[in-house]
């Protein structure tokens, strides 16, 4: 009986590790790409290696006189599980999708100033998420 318990624990650990590592981002990428509308697809940012309270940062060279959309999706389909904060090349805050108590599922940024921008992502009450970047001239 002891052996059974040991094996059960091992299997439980292996299965839980496997399921933790497998955050299926593809359906979220599809959903988030669909939110882009008339914006042209550019990049996918996966937010799948952090927990609630942690953050991950990506960057992208934004071009002046171009509109960008950052759409956000999470594995629970809550539309509010991923937060993004956008900073300009001088690390000045540009915007966040959490504004006045509301969490927006996307940000459109009408960029006038060319430079490298930083996107800091965090998650709340979800396991993982993705953000898809699109552009429009």
């Amino acid at each position, binding site marked *: 009986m002891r052996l*059974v318990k040991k094996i059960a624990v091992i299997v439980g650990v292996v299965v839980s590790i*496997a399921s933790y590592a497998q955050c299926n981002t593809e359906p979220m990428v599809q959903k988030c790409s669909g939110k882009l509308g008339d914006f042209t697809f550019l990049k996918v940012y996966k937010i799948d290696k952090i927990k609630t309270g942690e953050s991950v940062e990506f*960057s992208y060279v934004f*071009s002046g006189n171009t509109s960008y959309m950052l759409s956000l999706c999470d594995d629970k389909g809550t539309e509010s599980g991923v937060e993004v904060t956008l900073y300009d090349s001088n690390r000045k805050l540009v915007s966040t999708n959490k504004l006045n108590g509301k969490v927006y599922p996307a940000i459109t940024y009408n960029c006038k*100033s060319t430079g490298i921008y930083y996107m800091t992502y965090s998650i709340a009450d979800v396991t993982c998420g993705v953000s898809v970047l699109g552009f429009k*001239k």
Partner: protein
Amino acid sequence: MKNKYFIIGLFSTLVVLIFSSCSKKQSADDFSQIAKSDSSGQISQATSELAGQVIKSIPPPIEMQSMILSSGATYNADILNPSDEAEKYSTNYHKAINLGIYGADLAYINIYNHKEDALSYLNTVIKLSEDLKVGQFFDFETIKRVADNNKNLDSMLNITTSNFEKMNNYLQEQNRSNISMYMLTGGWVEALYVACKVGLDKKNQPLYDKIAEQKIVLDQVLLLLSCYKNDPNAKILHDDLHELKTVFDKIKIETVYAEPTMVEENGQLVVKDNSKTIIIAPEDVIKEISNSISATRAKIIG
């Protein structure tokens, strides 16, 4: 008796899990052999993660190519790398960097809705992708069907851009980010080359400005290449593009800052950038950039 079956069941589960992880390991080993074959030095996990971050920061060719269409320039297939040249690329380095070149050419063709050329270049992209063991991201028949079912090639453009993105993500997950680095560099070189050709031909200032903005992207490309400093091919590319940087240094890009404003439009959050960028990009500097990038591209396409 019940316990016996229970133990057998548990063991079976473990065996399946162990075997599935072994098969994954085998596959990863195959890929790492490909990665090693063109690289004399491996990079650390931290450097690999940095490279992955930098790769995410570099715009795909489609952004520059879209400006070419806006300039009013007509379609010119003669400036592209001929699709039937792919056969001569024998090393993984040449295949990967020219996959980037052809990917940028495909984006240019898609923007101009030239279906026949698009399918020809798509074939070349698929051939090189298969050689690099990433052919699973391009299914010719599916993409052709999408092209056939649409009056314009917007959907094909989105599919190919997104497939390249998936390929890059996969390569990084498989510790083959050097292949991704070559593809990205090749794509950027080709997009800049085509933009210079068209810009100078049309004497188009917005296109000159777009070329000038590549000064910022070039810094990212150089940072990416520096992650692979032990790779002789990456070093040559780095040195060539560092020469280009000395030309780009003649370009002035200044930003006048103003606080952004946020509004809600139709339930969407829209952020308006009130800063502006002043770009000083004289034509003679654009010509120098064109000459430098043409020389680098000539070395790449052979």
